């Protein structure tokens, strides 16, 4: 059975407009063979959930540099649960202090990749975690 490529939504939630990281990860994941959707800046959480549903993605990657990662991740996880989409793998990247990583994971974020994370780590993490979900 041919494998379907893994589909990833890279999302920049909120008002922060620094998207160098989001664009880098988009290009790196594409090079790794994933199908990546990057719809641009200023996405609201409901919009992210809607795009994830329409595009039938396996992974949602949030890129946040403003420091608002905890409230935004919490909101996203709640809305995904409400929409019955908590099977999506959620990862968070950006300016994330080490001490906030446990809190993000407690919210249901699967992986956290602070600025300067290596592309290969992100790729390997997605490959192993999305594969896990395929029966």
């Amino acid at each position, binding site marked *: 059975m041919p494998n379907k490529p893994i589909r990833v939504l890279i999302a*920049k939630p*909120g*008002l*922060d*407009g*620094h*998207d*160098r990281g989001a*664009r*880098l990860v*988009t*290009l*790196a994941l*594409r090079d790794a063979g994933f199908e990546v959707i*990057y*719809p*641009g*800046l*200023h996405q*609201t959480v409901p919009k992210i959930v809607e795009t994830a549903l329409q595009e039938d993605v396996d992974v949602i990657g949030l890129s946040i540099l*403003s*420091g*608002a990662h905890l*409230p*935004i991740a919490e909101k996203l996880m709640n809305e995904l649960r409400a929409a019955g989409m908590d099977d999506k793998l959620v990862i968070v990247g950006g*300016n994330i*202090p*080490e001490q906030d990583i446990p809190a993000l994971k407690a919210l249901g974020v699967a992986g956290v990749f*602070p*600025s*300067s994370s*290596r*592309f*290969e780590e992100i790729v390997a993490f997605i490959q192993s975690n999305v594969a896990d979900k395929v029966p």
Partner: protein
Amino acid sequence: MADKIRDVILESGIPVKPVYGPEDLSGIDPAQDIGKPGEFPFTRGIHPLMYRQRPFTMRQYAGFGMPHETNQRFKFLIENGQNALNVAFDLPTQMGLDSSDPLAEGEVGRVGMAVDTLADMEVAFAGIPIDQISVSLTINAVAAPIMAMYFVVAEKQGVPLNQVRGTAQNDILKEYIGRGAWIFPVEPAVRLIGDTIEFCARNAPKYYPVSVCGYHIRESGANPVQEIAYAYAIAKEYIRRGLGRGLGIDEFAGQISFNLDIYGNFFEQIAKFRAARRLWARIMKDEFGAQNPSTMMMKMIAGGGGGGLTIEQPENNIVRGAYYALISALSGTQTMALCSYDEAYTIPTEKAALISLRTMQILIEEMGIADTVDPLGGSYYVESLTSEFEKRISAEIQRVDDEWGGIVEAVSGGIVQGEVARQAYRFEKGIQDGSIPKVGVNRFRMEEEQRDVALHPYDPKQAEESIRRTAEVIAARDAGTVESALQKVRDAAANGHNTMPALIEAVRAYATIGEITKTLKEVFGEYAEQVKL
């Protein structure tokens, strides 16, 4: 057999020889191309005596939380010898949202000061002599109404409009390329910049209405040649808008300044700034027919950028900052700023901001950097590299015009953004595979390092405080005056009249930034981002 010499190619794609000599100056005319400091084409600096006469201005970016906290940080920086301010606004303010807007949730006062109304600006600048301290407002999409607030604050402090000094960032085209704080579609957004340029030229001639930012373009990943080329393409567009208002080139173009970035190769940056100064003088004289030498002078803030700082071994960033400051001074900057060493983690703490300020003070007080003008002038390597930079920047500007249909077209369609993202990706791959050295990242890495950085705290209660303050202001203002002022803003926007007089009237009536932005959106619409990756 001799060891093989490694190849050196700068980030801008320029190869570097192991040795430079007189033959490398053969295409350079010392009088025409280098000249004297303070004379066309200003390669060596825009003033004859540079820092010997007047040291560079030190202007750290600051502002957070509530206006009274920002006011305290400003006073702290001034007490410690800083002679200019650079105001950071929070994201809701930058996006034209009031603190009470649902989209502002979690962001009020986080990355800068929250401003809803004139009352907030009055608090932020209370007790700060704005006739003596040069204030820079880092604001773009809503620069026009924030400038209007600043002008009213100045007036209330007794400084008449024609005496107001300072700078607004007010460069919207770069927001679409990097930084992302855009609201309106490209065309009306650029038209608002035309309004501010025209208004200042006619009413506030000492004010610098636009600071064109190569800085954020480079922070988004552009190489140094692209940084200057795209900034110049943008600046030329704003200048055409000013000319379109019937202004003469010498009436306004000298009040457009530049905000440029420093990180990466030491000599590459210095050559970049020297070439940029020369090229700008030539563009202004040859393309725009400027007569006044001041119009031809490229005035800049050249600041050490966050793009060069690392999360790894953060104290190393203090050392990087010192080199960036040295680059800035050797490049003949007018104003200097440095990202703080904790930038990759947090809004700079007071301690980190102070170290950055002291870094610049040590440079100018102890190191003799102010003793003589352009000490690298005449260097075989630096002059040769400067000439090569000028050629490459010119060629890239040409590409924007010839291949991409001009900067407005290229930005609207996401072409520049894609170009910059691909450059950023090549660079990042170089860092990750180690071909571009970075200490602490791919050289001398320490796996179990302690990252001992204090984080700047964020207090969610300040949103409530801001909402309450603004509610009080709204309760106390005259609703009819506000409504009629907003109607004038709407009419001016729709009829193509200069919006600044109406904006001044609206902010004076304590209209909120959200109300003003909503009014402008009704006329202009909103930008629909084009992502081309």
